[in-house]
């Protein structure tokens, strides 16, 4: 009896109107189970994040924030990821446009290839990259030294693992631009390139930008591929790992919190960017 009463009150708080239309007990319990299972997932994501932030004292955080090494590594991480995003955008946006507009043989294979970096273990991706930009590689021999241990090398590793986010977001953004608008522009005398720069790109820009921010954030958080290419100079994710290994949890925690806060702020900007149009944010 009491349990039923509990179910009633829980239901009125949790269950939406549509679910209420068929009001029998079985459905009510079903909804409660759905809600509880769903809540556990959300809790699973936010609990560790909140916990680490609570567990870290302001003093520790301040200390980390003025630590020269930490500042250097954050700068390096942001810049390397930014460079990776910018250069990838230069070639990735045209590729996205091609994929969105042209039907050609092997298009679906190409789409699968672009998603490859997501499914390959990132440490393995780092090793694979070594064979291309390491000291013994063609590029390494050409330059006299490899790109390992350099900021450029870090950028390359970040670009490799985060490129799919940019290309996929940009492709979806271009697909959402009605092709008819491009056709009209052509009949009005605009060349294909002028049409691209005055119609397609401005209309897809918001989606492309959110793809770029997503790629940037993904680059910042990359550990596996980066640590293979460059242990030094140290990016922040590598530094969190090194400090945890060498000095233990409490020493690594404050840097980890800083990194989390940076990534969360980028994420919030991304969501706001999508919201300003008054739509549900798309899962770019």
């Amino acid at each position, binding site marked *: 009896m009491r349990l039923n009463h509990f179910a009633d009150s829980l239901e009125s708080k949790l269950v939406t109107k549509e679910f209420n239309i068929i009001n029998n007990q079985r459905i009510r319990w079903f909804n409660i189970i759905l809600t509880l299972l769903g809540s556990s997932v959300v809790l699973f994501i936010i609990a560790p994040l909140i916990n680490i932030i609570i567990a870290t004292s302001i003093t520790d955080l301040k200390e980390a924030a003025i630590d020269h090494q930490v500042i250097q590594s954050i700068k390096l991480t942001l810049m390397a990821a930014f460079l990776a995003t910018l250069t990838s955008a230069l070639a990735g946006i045209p590729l996205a446009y091609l994929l969105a507009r042209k039907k050609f043989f092997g298009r679906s294979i190409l789409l699968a290839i672009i998603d490859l970096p997501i499914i390959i273990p990132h440490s393995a991706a780092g090793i694979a990259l070594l064979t291309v930009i390491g000291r013994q590689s063609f590029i390494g021999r050409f330059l006299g030294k490899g790109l390992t241990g350099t900021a450029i090398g870090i950028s390359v590793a970040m670009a490799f693992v985060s490129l799919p986010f940019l290309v996929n977001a940009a492709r979806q953004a271009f697909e959402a631009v009605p092709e008819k*608008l491009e056709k*009209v522009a*052509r009949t009005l005398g605009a*060349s294909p390139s002028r049409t691209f720069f005055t119609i397609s790109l401005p209309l897809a820009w918001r989606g492309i930008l959110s793809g770029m921010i997503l790629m940037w954030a993904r680059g910042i958080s990359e550990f596996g591929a980066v640590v293979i290419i460059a242990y030094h100079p140290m990016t922040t994710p590598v530094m969190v790992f090194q400090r945890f290994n060498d000095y233990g949890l409490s020493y690594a925690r404050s840097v980890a919190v800083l990194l989390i806060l940076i990534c969360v702020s980028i994420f919030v900007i991304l969501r706001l960017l999508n919201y300003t149009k008054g739509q549900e944010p798309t899962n770019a």
Partner: protein
Amino acid sequence: MLELHSISKNLGSFAMADISIKINNGEYFVLLGPSGVGKSVLVDIVAGLIKPDDGRIFWDNKDITLEPPEARGFAVAYQDYALFPHLTIRQNITYGLRATGCSSGKIASRLQMLTEMLNIHELLSRRPTNLSGGEQQRVALARALAIEPKLLLLDEPLSALDTNTRLRLRKELKRINKELGISVLHVTHDPEEAMTLADQICVMLDNKVQQIATPTQLFRKPSDPEVAEFLGIRNVLPVTKAEKGKCFVCDKNVYASSANASTSHIWIKPEEILLSIEPFDSSARNQFKCRVAELDHRDSLLAVHAICGKLTLIALITYTSLKKLEMEVGKDVYVTFKSSAVHCF
């Protein structure tokens, strides 16, 4: 002058073959056909947006089949307007002029002229999204006309508009065609629209050209019953045998002043058929005793389906006549029509 020579296109889901049409300078040419016969594809082929599989396109005897759309100088206005949503109305209209590198003086004067002609002056700094359908189509027309196109392509330009706006814009299209002397290729599924606008009508059925004629010719002599039916012509009847002034239709002799030995079909306007309860003497040569099979309500008139043996005729009467004749299904009536009211083809 635009000429299409046996254009063919296969798009998988549908195919059209051997389309040949000719549009003279300053002509208002209407492509009329039900949806799905490839009218819009043909517009895109003429504009250069789709390559035909086969056939050639000529402008003033120059082969332009392989020219890109921006080199053709044909502007398009679509049913859904296709205005650039990120640009203001002013930027939309001047887009083509800016793309082709016109001077700012020319752009300003052209803008001035078009906004006056289409009465859209107060819209210039607004965005397309908060304009009504009629306003958007005016802007789309202004944008198309801005580049002084050699040919204006209109793909169902009035179909998304409400009746009043449609009738108003229809008049304006004709005015634009006459005032600017610009050739127009207008695609529509509406026979009435085609009738009021066209100098030449091309009827497309089953992915091919059925007939090209002036509106008057078309309605007087449709090439076959399918065309007649699509044009909304009622009372189309097959002729089994014909001679001068008379033909044999559904076991009946029908007097038709324009009939000759080659007549294969006749049609009679429903408005020209008289109904009466008693037979009466008149100069009309055709009179049959029929039975009312169906009464069909439409707008302010009533369509009466009258059957006499194999012959079915539709006549239109007013509600007043309906009461006076005490018309009802199953009642016997006499249908009467003049021999000059019988159109032969």
